[in-house]
């Protein structure tokens, strides 16, 4: 019996040793292999995010050594607020498995998600690369000194104009270098065309505030929604008044066709030569190319006009990709690698852009300073009659206005401000009444906000 137990003890010791050694071997092997586990990277996007797959999927194929069985999927959402809603609901419900690995987002909604701890801090990763990126690329993702998203694009406000119309009515487009000149051109177009040709459009919904306000005239006018202490001053700020009065002048004088953007009616008006210009972000390129093919070769672009007294061009609009801070976020490193190559890999970026051009699909100029030096980014554009849209997009970023300060309550503020602007566009109130109501409602419904430096 003693021999039996002795033998059993020896066997146990040997077995335990074997298990320990085997486990250590596996652990060492796992650590040294550095391969990402099998699965699917899920990213939430909006606009036309599916075209990113044409870059990311080939990238995964090229990197099977580190991601042998990883695939990627991009889920289309309605917009940034919808992304935030989905994330918030999954987070509140504790359904972490339902959270995506990353998502595209705008600064307004990023602030809250970062404040709530839903996104990873990527300061260490991005800050070491800022000297390789275009100016202010990570600005709007920087909150209290920390960077919470990877910059994907930095696109300026621009002025698109139909050269054919300007030739027809013998108007020099260079006069639109200033907003005051832009308005004068609109008046002349209206007069010479007997009211047929509008300077531009105005959307009856929330996109007027988005494109003419927050992203457009407001930053260029150095306008403020909040003072430095967080109190609403939009109704007393001289910059805000300058911006709104410019819009009012164009609209009240009948220079803007009232029609919803991104709708067939607008595209029909463009194709029929009824709209001469678009004061809007560079993203409009993809919509113009895709929906207004009858005007191929007619359009040109130039930097956004400036207010004479301020002399600032359009504020850049940045889009970011943020990594979700969730338990077991195994693909964080892989997403960073993908982003890094998307940003800095010249060969494959150009290849992707060429495929986008063939598909009339969206793409943006790179944010890499080095990549932008390549002559590829100055190639002529067929849709713009041989003018290089890419080159103009690069030029339009110069002397750009700083964006409006973003606070945690800006999503609600946008609703309040837009509501007043919509009533103004609907003819229910004057611009003065709208501005006054904006201030009152911001104070009543929000009060003081925390201004994030």
């Amino acid at each position, binding site marked *: 019996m003693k021999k039996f137990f002795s033998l059993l003890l020896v066997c146990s010791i040997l077995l335990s040793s074997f298990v320990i050694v085997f486990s250590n071997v596996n652990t060492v092997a796992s650590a040294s292999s550095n391969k990402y586990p099998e699965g699917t990277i899920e990213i939430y996007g909006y606009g036309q995010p599916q075209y990113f797959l044409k870059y990311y999927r080939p990238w995964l194929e090229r990197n099977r050594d580190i991601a042998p069985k990883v695939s990627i999927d991009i889920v289309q959402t309605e917009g940034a*607020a919808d992304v935030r809603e989905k994330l918030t609901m999954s987070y509140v419900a504790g359904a972490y498995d339902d959270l995506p690995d990353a998502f595209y987002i705008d600064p307004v909604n990023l602030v809250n998600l970062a404040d709530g701890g*839903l996104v990873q801090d990527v300061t260490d990763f991005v800050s070491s690369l800022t000297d390789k990126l275009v100016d202010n690329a990570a600005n709007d993702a920087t909150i209290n000194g920390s960077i919470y998203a990877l910059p994907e694009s930095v696109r300026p406000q621009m002025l698109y104009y139909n050269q054919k119309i300007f030739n027809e009515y013998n108007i020099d487009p260079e006069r639109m270098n200033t907003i005051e000149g832009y308005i004068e051109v609109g008046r002349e177009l209206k007069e010479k065309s007997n009211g047929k040709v509008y300077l531009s459009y105005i959307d009856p919904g929330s996109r007027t505030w988005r494109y003419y306000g927050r992203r457009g005239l407001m930053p260029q006018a150095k306008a403020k929604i909040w003072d430095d202490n967080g109190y609403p001053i939009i109704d007393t700020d001289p910059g805000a008044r300058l911006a709104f009065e410019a819009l009012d002048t164009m609209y009240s004088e009948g220079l803007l066709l*009232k029609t919803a953007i991104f709708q067939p*009616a607008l595209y029909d008006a463009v194709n029929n030569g009824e709209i001469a210009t678009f004061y809007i972000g560079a993203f409009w390129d993809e919509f113009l190319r895709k929906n207004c093919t009858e005007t191929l070769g007619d359009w040109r672009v130039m930097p956004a006009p400036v207010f004479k007294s301020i002399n600032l061009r359009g504020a850049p609009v940045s889009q970011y990709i943020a990594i979700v801070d969730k338990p077991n976020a195994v693909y964080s490193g892989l997403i960073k690698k993908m982003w890094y190559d998307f940003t800095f890999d010249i060969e494959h970026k150009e290849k992707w852009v060429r495929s986008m051009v063939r598909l009339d699909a969206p793409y943006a100029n790179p944010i890499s300073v080095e990549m932008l030096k390549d002559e590829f980014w100055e190639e002529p554009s067929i849709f713009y009659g041989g003018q290089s849209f890419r080159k103009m997009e690069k030029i339009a970023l110069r002397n750009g206005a700083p964006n409006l300060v973003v606070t*945690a309550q800006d999503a609600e503020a946008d609703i309040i401000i837009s509501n007043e602007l919509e009533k103004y566009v609907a003819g*229910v109130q004057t611009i003065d009444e709208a501005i006054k109501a904006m201030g009152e409602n911001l104070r009543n419904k929000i009060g003081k906000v925390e201004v994030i430096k």
Partner: protein
Amino acid sequence: MRLINTLRKHKVPYLFILPFFILFSIFQLYPIVWTVWVSLTKWNGIKQPVFIGLNNYNLLLNDYMFTDAFFNTVVYWVTGVIFIIILSLGIASLLNYNNLKGKGFFKVVTFLPNVSAAIAIGIIFSMLFDKNIGIINEVISLFGINKIGWLTTVKYSKIPVIILNIWRNTPWFTLIILSGLLNIPEEYYEAARIDGANKIQQFFKITLPNLTDILFFCFIILTVNSWKIFNESYILKGPSTSNMSLFQYMYQSGFTAFKMGYASAIGVVLIIILAIVSVVQFILMRKNSEI
């Protein structure tokens, strides 16, 4: 003790209904209680809620957006109840006509709007009502009427929502009323005809009285649905809050502005409104039954 004795005596039926009440408590009662609690907080959905008492309700009472949404919803409710029930009753009566040829075909066609995807129909309606290229404006232009900015003016923006709501919901209630019509004994009409009653008299003396319960049911369902109207006003959005429904405003407050506490307060108000309306309806229904 009396309750315990009752439970012991009738334990079987109580056990049978127990699962429902368990599910009700988990999926309805608890969420309602939780909503009431959240309505007393300031919460963006991510960070910890902060108790603020009745501030959300005070804010709500002074919020023109809430007021606009409330009255818009009242309009949708009233117009929905009136037009849907009248149209449903009329269409059901026609479908129930004995000499109608191809009755099956017409029933199917009548029901099609109800099974169409709300989003798709909304997009089509937004094109129909477009000021510049919409076919509705093209038609009225033929009669010398100026084009109307249906979705771009405060004055008219509720009309497309009302029409879409009526168009989508009439088929369902037509089906319900038709089932009621089919249950009215033909002998009633025969007796009436023998007594010399014409079609109109038959309708008001026989059809309507026999459909009272069905119509009350439709009224209740329509009321609840009207106060929950969302898709139609969301897709056919007009300027500002000109055609925004209360449910839509609650959604916007919660998932666009991310003011969960405020959105919950709106939700609580909706619950109260529906509760009051339902109680009134049941009281009226009971009185009508007693008569």
